[in-house]
């Protein structure tokens, strides 16, 4: 049962890390000071984003695991979590691509 709880925690953490990736990407494009902060942390904004996404995923998985260990997730919760990850990832990809298209044509 703990392995399924670990997988469920990783699922929640992946949703969180995708949201963080989208937030960092768009905010850094819209705010030069924010992008400069990201650059100053590791030497390159993309390296910092990569580290932050990984840290969010790993820490998120631990925190969600602690929370999930106290509960008894249903089959429906587990199934919905995997589908939610898929939907959030697809939406994230559409938002990022759409943002850069609009950014390029100055809208």
């Amino acid at each position, binding site marked *: 049962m703990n392995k399924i709880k*670990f*997988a469920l925690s*990783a699922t929640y953490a992946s949703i969180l890390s995708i949201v963080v990736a989208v937030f960092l990407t768009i905010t850094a494009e819209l705010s030069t000071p924010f992008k400069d902060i990201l650059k100053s942390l590791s030497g390159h904004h*993309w390296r910092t*984003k990569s580290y932050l996404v990984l840290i969010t995923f790993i820490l998120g998985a631990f925190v969600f695991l602690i929370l999930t260990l106290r509960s008894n997730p249903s089959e429906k919760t587990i199934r919905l979590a995997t589908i939610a*990850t898929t939907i959030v990832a697809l939406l*994230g990809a559409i938002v990022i*691509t759409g943002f850069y298209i609009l950014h*390029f044509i100055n809208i």
Partner: protein
Amino acid sequence: MNKPLLIGLHLGAAILGIDGFLWLLGELFAERVHVTRARIAGLIGLFGFIGSWLLGGYYYLNYYGSLVKPGIVAGTAPWAHKIAMEAKEHIFLFLVPMAFVAVAFLFVDPIMFESLRVKKGLRFLTATIAILGLVIGAMGYIISAAARWAV
């Protein structure tokens, strides 16, 4: 470091990642999943994407910005960098967490895995990982083409 070799290894690792998840997708359509084979496919996919992230990241941070990007941005297809590359480098950040999730479910007790009926959700997730990998690969082709011919 040999730059064409580095790009080749980055692409090769990405193809391994995509193929691993396409293989896993096939395994997940079986009535009873062959757990060992599914785990091997998932792990190949996960480590393929990790390798591609590290190799591509090294190339991007050390060579792309100084050697490739200026030519594309000044050429006839600046959108190849400003849309395709920007989207590619950021969407890629989703893949490893997603791949890890898919693999984590494969290590759940097989009897519980079948009884939980998470296969449908896992099929969607696995297909999305492979599709995003392929879309990112297509963006990589656009960027390479722009670097070669758009000047």
